[in-house]
């Protein structure tokens, strides 16, 4: 029987255009039917010099399917190089050219001597969702732009976190991770966002190690870089939110980078003192808000499901109901991700389900007894189930419709405080 996917949580692999858009002055050139970029036209924070509405596209039609679209692709790339002033051109192939077998690789290799770099990634929509597409674009950058370097700049660290634009807080989180790493005395290097474009990409091979802050997205890229560029990596699966996890993060990264122990501990002591100053001052709010939930459910991608679960259990003392990871995690990572949810304080283990069907998720939420008002953190689709179960609802994962997030972040000590602010704001508005 045909399966109907209810309540979309991600987009097709070709939405990796957003990953390219996040790199400053890089533009995707699409080789697909007309309208593929239209699905991104209402994403938050993506207008500006290059917005999805103006991406060059070969807009192939029936004639190109029958007679091959390579000529049209070649002319589109050539004219993009002439008309658009960008630093990096990434050719992305869509569903139809991949099925009929257009030889994109050959066309792009013909532009090896162009005045700007042209690379390609095969991101056909049927190959997976945009988490996979993101990995493919990063792989394309590694394979086609970077070479192994003999220079190693001391203390240079490449930081890789979640998927830009798919994760609403991507920019804020990335900057906060950079700041934390810098305070350890290391030099962070990222390639997404403001003023971090091609020049930072060129510095990737000179780093001492890669830091991956994500449960599974990007793990294959790390292994690729280890093989090709000889850079070791540290895989830290949990996005650090709040004091408990961020201190752990600083210790692990510091130890891996051989930062002196006293420096790490003094930094942590200083940060925690500041963080707990706030917690102490608002202790009456935490202890006496009787309408606060006891149990919570997170419906998000693996990164937020894991990060928020750990924060709410370890830092705020809530109890986890069932968590839902909706990014269609590949099978080879599911067991590992499940095991991360079992490493919580006080021997608590959170149950996690890799369900992507919104209907089933909502039925399970409705059926569960939360012993009070449920706390639901999820996408906009969860708003209706929150109304039905009379829950506190906070919109943190895609699609984020009723909030504007520009540079806010949930990572780090400050991010933890911000998440507390958001959760309690919801609880307070409802019962004033």
């Amino acid at each position: 029987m045909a399966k109907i996917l209810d309540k979309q949580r991600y987009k097709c692999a070709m939405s990796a255009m957003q990953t390219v858009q996040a790199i400053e002055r890089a533009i995707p050139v699409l080789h697909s039917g007309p309208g593929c970029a239209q699905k991104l036209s209402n994403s938050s924070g993506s207008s500006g010099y290059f917005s999805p509405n103006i991406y060059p596209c070969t807009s192939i039609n029936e004639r190109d399917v029958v007679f091959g679209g390579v000529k049209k692709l070649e002319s589109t790339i050539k004219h993009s190089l002439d008309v658009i002033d960008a630093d990096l051109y990434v050719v992305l192939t869509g569903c139809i050219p991949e099925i009929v077998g257009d030889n994109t690789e050959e066309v792009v290799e013909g532009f090896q001597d162009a005045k700007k770099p042209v690379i390609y990634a095969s991101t056909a929509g049927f190959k997976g969702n945009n988490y996979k597409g993101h990995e493919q674009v990063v792989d394309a950058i590694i394979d086609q732009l970077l070479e192994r370097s003999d220079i190693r700049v001391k203390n240079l660290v490449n930081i890789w976190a979640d998927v830009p634009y798919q994760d609403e807080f991507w920019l804020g989180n990335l900057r906060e991770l950079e700041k934390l790493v810098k305070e350890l005395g290391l030099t962070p290097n990222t390639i997404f966002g403001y003023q971090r474009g091609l020049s930072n990409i060129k510095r990737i091979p000179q780093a001492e190690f890669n830091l991956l802050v994500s449960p599974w997205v990007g793990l294959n890229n790390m292994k690729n870089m280890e093989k090709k560029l000889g850079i070791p990596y540290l895989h830290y699966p949990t996005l650090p939110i709040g004091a408990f996890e961020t201190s752990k993060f600083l210790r692990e990264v510091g130890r891996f980078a051989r930062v002196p122990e006293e420096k790490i501990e003094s930094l942590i002591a200083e940060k925690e003192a500041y963080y707990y100053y706030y917690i102490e001052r608002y202790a009456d709010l935490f202890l006496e808000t009787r309408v606060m939930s006891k149990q919570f459910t997170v419906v998000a991608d693996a990164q937020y499901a894991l990060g928020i679960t750990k924060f709410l259990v370890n830092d705020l003392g809530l109890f986890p109901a069932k968590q839902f990871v909706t990014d269609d995690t590949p099978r080879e990572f599911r067991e590992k991700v499940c095991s991360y949810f079992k490493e919580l304080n006080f021997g608590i283990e959170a149950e996690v389900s890799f369900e992507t069907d919104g209907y089933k998720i909502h039925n399970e939420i409705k059926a569960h007894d939360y012993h009070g008002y449920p706390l639901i953190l999820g996408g906009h689709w969860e708003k209706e189930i929150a109304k039905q179960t009379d829950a506190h609802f906070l919109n943190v994962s895609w699609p984020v419709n009723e909030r504007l997030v520009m540079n806010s972040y949930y990572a780090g000590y400050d991010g933890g405080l911000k998440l507390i602010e958001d959760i309690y704001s919801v609880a307070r508005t409802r019962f004033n």
Partner: protein
Amino acid sequence: MPYKIAVASSDGENIDMNFGAAHEFFIYEVGEEGKYALLEIREKQKEAGGPSFCQDGCKGRGCEGSHENQPRVDFIADCRCVICKKIGFHIQKQLEKKAVSAFDVEGKIEDAMEKITWYFHRMDHHQSLRGMANETLIGKEGRE
């Protein structure tokens, strides 16, 4: 079921005429296993009257009454597709309304016919188009 293909050509060998400029179309009929044969050479009559215009002046951009294009569309409306060197955007849309595909390519009629009949054959028999462009497909002669 057999279908017809119209080709805008001057000599029956090459596709070298634009759709509007062609004064005759070579009509091929395609049979069961994708075998095709020349059916007739249709000569275009002179259009009746001069260019007509609508009251609201949309100039054929999608309204039903694009009078100046109608005779040219009706002329080959019984064909499944038309092959020519170049074709205008508006007339292509009018043809699409009559379910006539337009292929604007250059080259030998034989090569184009091979590709197009193969393509329609695969579509009609619900077979995959995988590998069509770089010719890694199961031999073009094998029309299973």
